[in-house]
């Protein structure tokens, strides 16, 4: 960041947004810095450090879990431990090792818009909403802001919180990924969640990362599983459909064909683990 000339430390989210507006594209929000300080964009002349703004709280509001925009992955993983049987905690942990989780923020992992971000599919299957602060406040579905690899529709708006709605908190969930080491970037990652009543799955959600320009929901596979039990035919149909829904590319981590195949394998394993964990709990 050769051209960086100014450093700001706003005390509130509103002040941060005001500064970002003023900078007109020359300023960047700085959360944990684990993406910004790696890419070091040359056109950035000012950073707006969010670490001291009033968006660093975790709170349960009427049963919904709200993670503030300035909350680190480490804080988030502890706060989110009770959600979906610990699934979110596991996904956040596997996002990065200790040194990075101490610095990086959950909102930053979302805003960075990596197609392979581990926290994003895990949040998506729990219907997570982004609480945005702009000229007005609004809440939007998390996946709706992702428009491509490292591209979002956020503009100057600040993520001042991420909310897991009360209905989703008690869902069963499983996160799994294929990667060289535990917190390496995923070749494919998968999160599934559902309410399990008897042996039937309701509110089925399936999300995948690193297999499309953004993290995606496999909505047709979800529809196949909705209200069903995990019998071999239904499971096979959901797995085959998942492989149709993904749009992977080949890069040096994995080939498109391999990613497509593994997408099905991980969805099958995740759904099987989801049902097995329910049986154990019963």
């Amino acid at each position, binding site marked *: *960041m*050769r*051209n*960086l*000339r*100014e*450093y700001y*430390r706003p005390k509130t989210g509103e002040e941060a947004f005001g500064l970002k507006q003023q900078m007109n594209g020359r300023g960047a929000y*700085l959360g*944990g*810095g*684990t993406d910004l*300080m*790696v890419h070091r964009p040359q056109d950035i002349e000012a*950073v707006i*450090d969010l*670490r001291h703004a009033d968006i660093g709280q975790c709170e349960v509001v009427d049963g919904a879990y709200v993670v503030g925009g300035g909350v*680190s992955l*480490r804080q988030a993983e502890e706060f989110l431990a009770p959600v979906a049987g610990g699934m979110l905690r596991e996904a956040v*942990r596997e996002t*990065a*090792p*200790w*040194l*990075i989780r*101490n*610095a990086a923020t959950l909102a930053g992992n979302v805003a960075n818009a990596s197609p392979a971000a581990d926290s994003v599919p895990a949040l998506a299957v729990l219907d997570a909403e982004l609480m945005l602060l702009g000229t007005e406040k609004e809440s939007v579905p998390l996946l709706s802001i992702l428009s491509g690899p490292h591209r979002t529709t956020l503009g100057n708006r600040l993520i001042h919180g991420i909310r897991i709605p009360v209905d989703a908190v008690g869902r069963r969930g499983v996160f799994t990924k294929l990667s060289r*080491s*535990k*917190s*390496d970037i995923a070749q494919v990652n998968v999160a599934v969640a559902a309410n399990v009543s008897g042996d039937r799955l309701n509110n089925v959600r399936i999300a995948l990362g690193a297999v499309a320009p953004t993290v995606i929901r496999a909505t047709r596979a979800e529809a196949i599983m909705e209200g069903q039990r995990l019998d071999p035919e239904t499971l096979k149909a959901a797995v085959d459909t998942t492989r149709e829904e993904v749009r992977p590319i080949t890069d040096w981590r994995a080939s498109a064909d391999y990613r497509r195949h593994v997408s099905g394998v991980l969805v099958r394993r995740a759904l099987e683990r989801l049902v097995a964990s329910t049986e154990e709990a019963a």
Partner: protein
Amino acid sequence: MRVSCTLNGRPIEWEIVPNETLLDSLRSHGLTGTKRVCESGECGACAVIVDGLAMDSCLLLTAQIDGADVVTVEGLETAGTLHPVEAAFAENGAIQCGFCIPGMVVTAANFLEQNPHPSEDEVRHVFNGNLCRCTGYKKPIEAVLNAAQTMGEQR
């Protein structure tokens, strides 16, 4: 611009430029135990502890530590006595070329403070963020587990 903070227990005040990283500032002030390697948050050789949390100093602007409490590898020992993690690394011979070791020691000391009874798996996951190009992971992992035991006995 000026920043002031506590560094290894002592108050300091530095004149800096806004795009200076903490890694650069530390090394230019003679604290060369903090190593410069990847400068992209991959290797952990530049780990320092900021307000009780170990992180990569190559990813921090020095401006960010204004008002903070910073501990580097030089600040781990107390009155000439090695930190239990440093002692365990020495006892276990957990050092080959040694370049990654300050980062590993700082990371492990901070991790054990918050996770006094880690499993081997947990330690392995922590060291996902500390690369050793001699590939000497086995002994550092054993050293951290030994240090956990020593620190437990001292409690």
